[in-house]
């Protein structure tokens, strides 16, 4: 590998180990004396927990312990918490119910952990788990958020009357209502954003080892943010203080948000390891993943958008009910509020916006951030509205969007966000050109001749990445700061190790982060190693989610590199007897600009460590750290155009063309960016076309396996037509915006707009399954 810097399409360094089966995941970790945990889970969605009889289970072969919530409480292990405090509009704090890692008193959803069995083998633990006798006294169940708010609905938590967690608002209510009252046209819709199961390829897992000699814990776990896990485990769950707890997140096979949170199982494994004196490993089975991984989305919204006589948007009124499930997961409160309603201006000038959001407890799995987290919900709402409004107003959907675009920056929206840069028209034009928008009528006619209904739909999305100045999110209720850290360690021979607080679980950081170093220091890529995912190796960091690792994580590395370069230049100037200001770093050398005087990089590094000949007073070594706190969110935006063909006889929708035109700011590695877009589009198309999470009235998850939960497969996807336009981000040193979630954010409305165009209906609930589309066609006929 040579010098491959910013902008090079380098194949991912990490893929060699992944595609040869040499990756090391939590379940690959084996430590001496390790035993296996299996959880006893509630088969009921809501019940009073009676006696737990584990006598028979305890006597079974290989079993060393059966532990319950009572014992956990006796050991003073804390309850799980939601780390973002949101108050209702009347100032009341959110009504957070208790979530014990092992249930105490009550179970509140199917899959709620009731006890844990530890045994020599996983099979023994499973056998014994079946033998644990639990008395349940079943209670009435509520699974739907709208039902949960109705009077007389079953109560999920006593301290959340009417199941209401908070009733929150943003924007100007009176101004919005006034704008709508005076509007020439108002488009109204009811829009559901379907609940999704994250389905990471690697199920969640934890291996906890308590070292009695050192009174110290090690936890290997499937985490997107091991330091945050350690912080929360020590600060709130009372498992161990931070200095006595090492958290390692090794290779992680996909997260999509679902591995941000701390779940009961990690806490219980740590606690059980100390109690039993053996290392304890738990690996979720796929059914457990379906039942207990934090789900995504699940919004129901009433929305109104007003236009003046010139088709300019005058106001937007949103009333959303968000189903948070049975317990408040770690960031669940932020997703339907600050990650959602703050994006409701979209790409448009909307003078007045008001959004009201009620979050609700139900007897279903907890809901939290899932790829996009709030922004897909906002985008779906707006872009379904724009398309529908265009149809009602009789104008081209492209032109309606174009005439309402924001064109001047910075642009302060009525909902907190201040957009720093963008060019939405450039994305729109590029997408329409790539999609041959004007040729659509001919394609539709040709499809019609084949008996197919062809439709086209677009979506102009904006999203917010790299959450954001720590002080700002703190003021909004976040329990953590959202900066990132880096340490650049130049070794004595000039090779480089970068410790990053970001965590890679599919993003390719080991490649892109190395490209930045390669670019700056002129070193071959294989002389740079990226170290992440271990609290003993890496200084405090905040982890990877919200497409933040480029904009925030790499900015921290850039900042640390600045410091390394400054010191290296001082050393080189000293060695070359030149002026520090004349030194440039290029091609693996420190050079005196404009001369042929140079010293190889490795000699500068060596000089730093031999310390035989350093400038007066300089400390030895070449290693610098930095913490980077962004000055703003970043705002990726773009335009997606989808074309579908519907078989009117069966209702089956084929996505026949999908164009993505994204503005991610500057791009480090086009190959990886394209891959991220492909993955995001697959997930967004999955949501819009295939994926749905269904509970029956008794709270049983009907879609708890791949027999009933439809994931997108290669055959469901067209060959994507992906391109980018660039407005560099002014808010960080690299000009990066972030690309990890855009595909999942922008694609669902484009697809549903295309399907509704094809079949000529106004409303269609996701996913556009064959059944739903067929039924919509029947209803129309």
């Amino acid at each position, binding site marked *: 590998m040579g010098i491959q810097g910013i902008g090079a399409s380098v194949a991912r360094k990490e893929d060699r180990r992944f595609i040869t089966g040499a990756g090391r995941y939590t379940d690959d970790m084996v430590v001496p004396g390790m035993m296996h945990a299996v959880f006893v889970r509630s088969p009921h969605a809501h019940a009073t927990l009676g006696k737990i009889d584990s006598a028979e289970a305890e006597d079974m072969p290989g079993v060393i312990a059966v532990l319950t919530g009572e014992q956990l409480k006796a050991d003073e292990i804390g309850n799980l918490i939601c780390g973002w405090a949101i108050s209702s509009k009347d100032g009341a704090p959110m009504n957070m119910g208790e979530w014990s890692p092992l249930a105490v008193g009550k179970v509140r959803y199917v899959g709620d952990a009731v006890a844990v069995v530890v045994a020599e083998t996983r*099979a023994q633990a*499973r*056998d014994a788990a*079946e033998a644990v006798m639990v008395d349940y006294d079943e209670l009435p169940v509520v699974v739907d958020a709208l039902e949960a708010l109705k009077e007389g609905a079953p109560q999920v938590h006593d301290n959340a009357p009417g199941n209401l967690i908070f009733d929150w608002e943003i924007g100007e209510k009176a101004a919005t209502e006034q704008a709508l009252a005076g509007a020439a046209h108002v488009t109204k819709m009811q829009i559901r954003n379907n609940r999704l199961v994250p389905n990471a390829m690697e199920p969640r897992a934890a291996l906890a080892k308590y070292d009695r000699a050192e009174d110290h814990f090690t936890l290997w776990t499937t985490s997107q943010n091991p330091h945050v896990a350690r912080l929360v485990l020590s600060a709130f769950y009372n498992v161990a203080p931070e200095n006595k707890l090492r958290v390692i997140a090794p290779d992680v096979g996909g997260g999509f948000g679902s591995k941000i949170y701390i779940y009961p199982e990690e806490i219980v494994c740590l606690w059980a390891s100390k109690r039993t004196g053996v290392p304890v490993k738990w690996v979720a089975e796929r*059914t457990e993943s379906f039942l207990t991984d934090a789900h995504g989305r699940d919004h129901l919204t009433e929305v109104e958008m007003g236009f003046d006589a010139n088709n300019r948007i005058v106001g937007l009124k949103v009333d959303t009910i968000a189903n948070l499930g049975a317990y408040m997961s770690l960031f669940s409160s932020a997703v339907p509020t600050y990650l959602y309603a703050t994006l409701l201006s979209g790409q448009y000038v909307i003078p007045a916006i008001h959004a009201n959001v009620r979050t609700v407890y139900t007897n279903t799995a907890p809901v939290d951030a899932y790829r996009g987290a709030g922004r897909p919900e906002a985008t779906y709402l707006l872009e379904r509205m724009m398309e529908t409004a265009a149809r009602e107003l009789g104008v081209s959907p492209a032109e309606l969007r174009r005439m309402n675009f924001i064109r001047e920056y910075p642009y302060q929206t009525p909902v907190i966000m201040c957009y720093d840069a963008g060019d939405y028209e450039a994305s729109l034009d590029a997408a329409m050109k790539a999609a041959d928008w004007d040729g659509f009528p001919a394609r539709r006619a040709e499809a019609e001749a084949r008996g197919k209904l062809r439709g086209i739909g677009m979506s102009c999305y904006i999203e917010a990445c790299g959450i954001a100045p720590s002080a700002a999110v703190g003021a909004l209720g976040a329990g953590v700061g959202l900066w990132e850290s880096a340490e650049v360690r130049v070794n004595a021979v000039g090779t480089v190790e970068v410790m990053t607080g970001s965590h890679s679980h599919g993003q390719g950081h080991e490649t892109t982060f190395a490209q930045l170093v390669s670019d700056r220091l002129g070193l071959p890529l294989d002389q740079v190693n990226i170290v992440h995912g271990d609290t003993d190796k890496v200084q405090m960091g905040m982890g990877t989610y919200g497409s933040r690792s480029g904009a925030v994580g790499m900015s921290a590395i850039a900042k640390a590199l600045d410091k390394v370069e400054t010191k290296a230049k001082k050393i080189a100037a000293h060695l070359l007897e030149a002026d520090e200001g004349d030194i440039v770093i290029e091609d693996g050398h420190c050079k005196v600009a404009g001369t042929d005087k140079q010293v190889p990089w490795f000699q500068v590094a060596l000089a730093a460590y031999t310390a035989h000949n350093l400038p007066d007073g300089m400390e030895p070594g070449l290693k610098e750290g930095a913490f980077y706190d962004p000055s703003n969110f970043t705002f990726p935006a773009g335009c997606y155009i989808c074309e579908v063909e519907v078989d009117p*006889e*069966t*209702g*089956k929708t084929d996505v026949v063309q999908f164009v993505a035109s994204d503005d991610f700011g500057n791009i480090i590695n086009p190959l990886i960016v394209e891959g991220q877009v492909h993955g995001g589009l697959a997930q967004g198309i999955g949501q819009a076309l*295939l994926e*749905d999470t*269904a509970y029956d009235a008794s709270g049983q998850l*009907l*879609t708890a396996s*791949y*027999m*009933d*939960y*439809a*994931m997108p497969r290669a055959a469901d996807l067209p060959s994507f037509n992906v391109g980018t336009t660039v407005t560099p981000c002014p808010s960080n040193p690299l000009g990066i915006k972030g690309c990890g979630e855009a595909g999942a954010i922008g694609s669902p409305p484009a697809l549903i707009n295309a399907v509704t165009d094809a079949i000529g209906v106004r409303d269609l609930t996701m996913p556009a*399954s*064959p*059944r739903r589309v*067929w*039924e919509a066609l029947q209803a129309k006929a």
Partner: protein
Amino acid sequence: MYETTYHRPASVEEAAALLAANPDAKLLAGGQTLVPTMKQRLAAPSDLVDLRHIAALRGISSEGGRIIIGAATPHAEVAGDATLRAACPGLADLAAHIGDPHVRYMGTLGGSIANNDPAADYPSAMLALGATIHTSKRDIGADDFFTGMFETALDEDEIIIAVSFAPPERAAYAKFPNPASLYAMTGVFVTKGSAGVRVAVTGAGSDGVFRQAEMEAALSADFSPAALDGITVSPEGLLEDLHASAAYRASLIKTMARRAVAAA
């Protein structure tokens, strides 16, 4: 999975003896249904008697004007066999669209029809082809073999050896897959041969695979898609689930039947 004892008999007789000696034993073919069921602890056979290493159960041949397919022949072999492709391409195509490559290399025809999943593909072909199921005890006609959802005429200790059928003049299968599992949400196999026209429907009936008499009559008079235009399929007795209502399945039966006739 609960503990079980694995056996690898070399002959059908040996397999039958193992079954007889172990009342809680089960035959194992490709394991594509049985093993997942065991992993979910929904089945707990004391013994597994593996049929995949009995040479006599595997392979496709043509004898006395009939096609014979061994019970332990995997779907991939059925899909790729030249004799079968020539004699009844519809059946080869059906096999080519079962599950995914892993499933097709492991799963077997015998296992599929013994299991008689209401959404499985093969039962419709056997019924429409008027196939004979040859077992360790007797020969059973397809009309008598499939007796209901997950039910067959097989005795507990009876082993399917092979199936045979006379190649039809025309035959084709049209499948509308369940979007999640890709099993048949509705599949229709039509044949026209010496025994007349037969239309078998899978994936849709709450009693498993069935023949559609009205369509058979219409197609006997005129074997063309248009012959089905006047027929209304009743949703009565059809499956209802998350993915399809009975009314939707009724509509799919007609659509798939027309497509199968067009392809035959």
